[in-house]
Each structure stands twice: as C-alpha cells, then as structure tokens.
C-alpha cells in the first residue's frame, strides 16, 4: 500500500531582501495512513515549514509533495484551497477561533464549503463538539471558554469535515498541563479509534511520546 504522504527531495528557502535563506534541504519522507507522527527539533529547524508544505498552505522551492495521491505542487491556488477543505484538518497552537462566532459556529465554518445544507451542517458540528466533550458549550463564544476548551473546539473544527490528515502545530504549546493532557488524549483517541492520520509539530517530549513515531529535524534536514 503506497504511503499516504510522500515527500520527495523537498527544499524550501525564503528570500529576505537579497538574501536566500534555506529552511528545508532535500527532505524525503513517507507517512502511512493511520500513522501518528511527531515532528521535533529546535526552533528554526523547519518543522512548521514542513507541516505547512504537507498541509498545502505553502509550496516547496523544489521537490514534490504528494498527499493521498495528489501532487500538491501541481495544483493552482484555487485547487489547493479546495483540496485543503476536503483533506486537511488544521490545529493551531493558539487555537485561532473566530472570536465573533460561537463554538458551534466555529466548528460549522469549514462545512460552509462542503455543500451540505444548514441542518446537516449543524448536525455535523454538534456531533464534532460532542466528540471533543463540549456538547454543553456549543453556544459559548471563544472568550467564554478556557484555553483547553478553545483548543478542543479547534480540534472539533479540524475533524468536522472528516479530513484525510490532521496537522497540528504545537497544539499544547499554549496550554497548562491538564489541558494539554486532555488535548493529547483526544488526538490519541482520534488516531486509535478512527485511524485518523496525524502529523504533529511539538517541542514537548512528553507530547511527542503520544505519537507512534517521532521524526527529528535539525537545520532543515531530517536526522
């Protein structure tokens, strides 16, 4: 069975004024379906950049990124946006909920692109919130929730479209120990119970222990 995520000879560099700054150097990586991979490494090692390339929110300078059989480097911006909506659930370090929307409305947001009608969207959003244990917080605004609850709403938003992969960038980086444990437990459940493929960037060795495998990056190279 081919790997779900296939990265071949990927390099990425940024241009700052006249300087070319290499971030990733000739990376090749394969991740299978249902895997839970933690990407670790020091700051500036290129973890988030690699995550962004796999999630289709950035493009490599060289090489190819194939996810679920689609070469992301060959998609236009519009096609890439559509692809992200269908295949990627993103969990950010700082939750990134829309402050003027309630928990259930935040979770419903990605479903606006799905073609579902209003009652169906609401049903899916409520189910996702129930999975993360926030069935009783649906009409709360982000400011009315704790950090851990906000991150669980963000996870519900990430899984509501049943994406092919979940990508998480330091999902526990802004949480206290208990909330971090809750979030990691939830991700663990999603991986074990519904075989969701998860790619997580983290600095925290304790968080990385929850993954099935750990890949380390240093100065833009896999070590």
């Amino acid at each position, binding site marked *: 069975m081919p790997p779900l995520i296939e990265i071949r000879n990927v390099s990425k560099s940024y241009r700052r004024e006249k300087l070319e700054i290499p971030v990733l150097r000739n990376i090749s990586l394969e991740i299978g379906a249902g895997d839970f991979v933690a990407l670790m490494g020091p700051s500036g090692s290129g973890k988030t950049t690699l995550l*962004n390339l796999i*999630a289709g*929110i*950035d493009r490599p300078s060289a090489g190819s990124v194939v996810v679920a059989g689609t070469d992301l480097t060959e998609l236009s*911006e*519009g096609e890439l*946006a*559509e*692809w*992200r*909506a*269908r295949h*990627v659930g*993103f969990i*950010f370090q700082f939750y*990134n909920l*829309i*402050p*003027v*929307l309630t928990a*259930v*409305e935040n979770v*419903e*947001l*990605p479903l*606006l*692109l799905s073609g579902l009608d*209003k009652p169906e*969207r609401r049903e899916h959003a409520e189910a996702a919130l129930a999975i993360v244990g926030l069935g009783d917080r649906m009409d709360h605004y982000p400011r009315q929730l704790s950090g851990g609850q906000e991150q669980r709403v963000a996870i519900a*938003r990430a899984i509501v479209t049943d994406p092919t992969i979940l990508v998480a960038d330091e999902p526990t980086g802004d949480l206290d120990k208990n909330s971090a444990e809750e979030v990691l437990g939830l991700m663990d459940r999603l991986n074990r119970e519904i075989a969701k493929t998860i790619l997580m960037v983290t600095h925290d060795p304790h968080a990385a222990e929850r993954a099935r495998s750990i890949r380390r990056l240093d100065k833009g190279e896999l070590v």
Partner: protein
Amino acid sequence: MELLKLIWRNTLRHKLRSLLTAVGIAVAVLAFMLLRTVVTAWNAGVEASAANRLITRHAVSFVFPLPYAYRDRIARVPGVERVTFAVWFSGVYIDKNQFFARLAVDSNSFFDVYPEFLVPPDQLAAFKRERNACIIGSEIAQRYNLKIGDVMPLEGDIFPGRWEFVVRGIYRPRDKTTDPTSMLFHWQYLEEQARKEKSSREGQVGWYVSRITNPDEAGALSASIDALFANSRAETKTETERAFQQSFLSSMGSVMTAMDVMSFVIIGIILLVLANTMIMAARERTHEYAVLKTLGFTARHIFVLITGESLILSVIGSAIGLTVAFPAVEGFQNALPKGWFPIFYIEPRTIVFGTIAGVAVGLIAALIPARRAMSIRIVEGLRYIG
C-alpha cells in the same frame, strides 16, 4: 451559520467604530443631498424653461422698460404664435421679509403663453372681468391663508402708493418645476395708475415673452425681433427663456459651481472615511483571513467578507442620510426667508445619485483592503501580529 452572518458579526465587532463610520457616511450623504437640492433649486428656473419661449428685454439691462408699442410688431414676426408681457412690480406685502414674485401681466395672453399655470376657467374669467383682481399661486394662498375674495394690500416701492388687489383665482403649478409662489395682476390696472399720475412708466412694459412655432428657429427669430428695434431708443435683446434664466443667475454662478463641486467632493470624503475604516478592520483581521484560507476559503470568499462589511456600512449610512434628508430639506427651507427658493424639493435623480454613490463608495472603499487580504500568503498571514 452562513457567510452573511460572519459579515454582519464582523460589522458589529467594533460597534463604536462602525457606528461612527455609518454616522459619518450619513452626515456626508445628508450634506450631499442638501447641496444638490440647493443647486437644483437655484437652477429650477432654467430647468423649467420652455424651449418654445423667447424673452425680449431692453438691450442695456433688464431694469429698463420697453415700449408697449413693441407688442404688435413682435407679434407680426413670422414664427411668433403669441406674445405676452409682464412688469416686475415688487412692492411690500405685510413686511419686507415676505418675498415672492409680484407681476403685472397682460391678462388676455399671459396664461396662453404659460400653460403650466393651471387656473380654473371660472376663476380666470372672474379675474379678467375685474380690473384690480389678482391670481396667486397655491403656495401663497396656503402660506398667507388667502381665499377667493380676500383683499391683498401691497405697499408700492417701484410704483409708489397703496395698492389693493382682490384674489379672484388661485393657480396650481402643472409640475414640480413650476413656481407656485407668484402673484399676477392686470397690467392695465398699473397702466391706469401711471396715466393718472403722468408717470414716466406710462406705456412701458418690463419684458416680452413670445411663444414660437418652432424652437429650432429660436436663434433666427431672436435676431429678427432685435432687428426690428435696431437703432431705436430702446434696442432689444431677445434670447431663449433658458438663456435668459441663465444670465439672470450668472451673478451667483461661481458660488453655485462651488456648491456643485463641493457636493461631489463630499462623495470623495465618504470614500476616504469608509476606506480608512475598512483598511483598519481588514488589517486587524489579517491573521483570521489566513486561518480561513487554511480551512479552504478562497480569495473570493475573503473579497466577499470585506466588501460585504463595507457595503453594509455604506448602505446603512446612506439610508440614514437619505431618510434624514427629507425632513432636513424641509427644515432648511423653513429656516430660510419665505420665497428664497420657490421650488425646493429633493429631485428623484438626486435620490438615485445618492443611492448609487452610497453603494459605489461601499464597493470602492473595499478594493484596497480586499486586494491586500486576498494576496497575502497564508504563512505570512498566520505570522501576522496586528
């Protein structure tokens, strides 16, 4: 939850800022409507001009009279259908602040040449029968509570003495551009008094008005009429009614042009106010737009979010401005001395223009922030700290 709900919630996110922006737009739209209405009112005479009427006045100045004897000579010019004449009487009614046009006219021909003054036939007949009768506009009747049979005493200034007129008719304006504030009486009555007093104004009229068959021949007919009186003691200047009205208004022309320009400058100010608000709002939400793009929303969705918010603000502001404009125009007219602007109303095209301007400003103000938010890369947006 629909995208529209998110647009609406974003609009209300900074309530005070949105409120101030909407009020700013409302005030600007109100100022635009008022200025346009004043300009329209000022030009109302020009707008109301009939294409088939020529005005003949003294070549030197409007204030110099013309001999009554010119009437028949003008009437004989081929292409002239009917000739009438009038004299500016002026005078004081109640006090000097009560301003409206008081004209001595040729009762037999005036209403033939000015069909836009609608007088009931029985009232017109009664007016013609009585030498000191007058016909007044419906607004004058309403303003001074005058009815048929009432006496209007006037203190003469150009024509000294106390004059008493009996109201025998009340005309209605045929359309909104017709002045409903004139008072018209028999020129013969004025002439009798002039004869009695052996005044120098005996046998004189103010100006002639000719109704012509073909408006396309106005230029040639004007030249023909003026040629009749060339090298006489009272040479004439004949022009179309529109040209006459325009020359009459020319003394205030630059002020009106400035007001005209200002009304459009105000549209530009609205644009800047709204664009400033939208740029601030979009900049603050750079991070959120990046999150939305991450979720799969496209640049087009971002455009809709920003433009929608801009349109909501501009439409609400414009609607308030348009709604308030009506009582404001009425209040403005009431605050002015009576008779300054006999025709003072918000033209339909001013309403249409105000509405279009409101929507257009909403769209244009969103262009710069929307373009920026659409083009920013997701990774840059996620790193953005507002």
